[in-house]
């Protein structure tokens, strides 16, 4: 049985995901609008004083990014699960971890990258000092893939549940705690000219660990949800 080379299968899956995302362009905006709304809530809530906003800016932007990515995680495997595509993928003999990785990469490009591109606007709203912006973008570039990777495990576990969305955030938020601490402290340190490379270094190592372990955990979760 001459199975497809994994490269072509991976490529076919990615192309399909981009085509699907392109067909549903309107839905791509949802996490971004959500991000903007959540970020604007904070000045309305805590008051517009620039100094206060600047202090809480890294935390606010990162928490908003975290919420936006969890919002889009629920649909990561759900549509494939419901129309039987996931079943055929599992039985296709291609390694399920690779399929999970392809879905995660597609999710990151569709949901994670826009958050990075939107961050200058959010930084402006939250009155983040200029020194902080490049580091904020760096931390988001390293951090959002971790959000997608860890979130995919929760997404795969709750894919077969009808109201899985709420449970998904309960499962995944505790796992985001270390990332949130490191990222916000990196940006905070950069704003006051303290060294921040240590935090970014830890985040990169977190990314590598997540990149190697998360797809296998997601694959196990998918196989489990299908049974």
């Amino acid at each position: 049985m001459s199975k497809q080379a994994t490269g072509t299968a991976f490529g076919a899956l990615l192309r399909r995901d981009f085509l699907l995302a392109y067909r549903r362009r309107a839905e791509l905006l949802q996490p971004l609008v959500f991000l903007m709304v959540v970020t604007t809530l904070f000045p309305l809530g805590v008051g517009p004083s620039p100094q206060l906003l600047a202090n809480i800016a890294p935390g606010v932007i990162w928490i908003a990014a975290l919420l936006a990515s969890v919002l889009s995680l629920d649909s990561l495997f759900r549509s494939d699960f419901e129309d039987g595509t996931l079943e055929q993928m599992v039985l296709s003999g291609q390694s399920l971890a690779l399929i999970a990785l392809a879905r995660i990469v597609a999710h990151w490009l569709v949901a994670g990258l826009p958050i990075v591109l939107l961050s200058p606007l959010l930084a402006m709203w939250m009155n983040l000092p200029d020194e902080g912006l490049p580091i904020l973008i760096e931390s988001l570039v390293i951090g959002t893939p971790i959000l997608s990777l860890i979130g995919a495990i929760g997404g795969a576990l709750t894919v077969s549940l009808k109201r899985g969305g709420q449970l998904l955030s309960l499962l995944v938020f505790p796992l985001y705690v270390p990332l949130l601490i490191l990222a916000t402290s990196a940006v905070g340190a950069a704003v006051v000219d303290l060294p921040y490379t240590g935090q970014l270094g830890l985040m990169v190592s977190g990314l590598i660990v997540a990149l190697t372990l998360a797809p296998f955990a997601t694959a196990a979760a998918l196989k489990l949800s299908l049974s």
Partner: protein
Amino acid sequence: MNPIVLFFHKTGSPPWFYRFSGYLIPWLWAIFLVITAIALYLGFFHAPVDYQQGATVRIMYLHVPAAWMSMMIYGLMAIMGFIALVWRIRIMEVLVIASAPVGAAFTMMALMTGSLWGRPMWGTYWVWDARLTSELVLLFLYFGVIALYNSFDEPRKAARAASLMSIVGAINLPIIYFSVEWWNTLHQGSSFGGDGPGIHPDMLLPLLLMAISTKFFYGANLLSRARLILLKQDHRKRWVQDLLSQEKH
């Protein structure tokens, strides 16, 4: 069937496990009560009152063992979950599910005693102290596993999902603890470092005894919860029917 799998298979059969744990539970409760009595007696009457924290150090005999237990049980759940997932041993799945509420109970106990211990020293019930914060995150991990288990309708699938989640959670637990520890020193300066300048030896003994007694509590409670789950799941099976008829006389 090599001998190891055979052993697991034999201990894995529900009726055998049900009977075996039935004999064990009373003994575990007895040992738990004896050791706790000794520990509290020593703790309240022999150990000196800590000059710095006064009598509140007596809360430490509850807080520290409970915190240890909450972490240990989560680690055990991950190990049992791994065995359950890889070898599909049903008893391991039942043990993972039975441990989750006990672990959550110990975490809540650690949080409550921690905040009560903090009140006299820090003036407020809740301080975002490193230990308390990581216990809180651990509590959310427990709730996550329990909620995940209850949201599936098919019990075997629910147990496997809960096992996988406890494995993923256990891998992240040390990372969470270190990052919260580091986060705490970042924002509040280094706190008074550990449990103060070394624990007085007389205070150490009750602490260790309490640590041991909580393990027996966990053992007894785990087995009685596992028996309940087995009964609920196998109520149509032959061995439960026989059990019922035996008890009728």
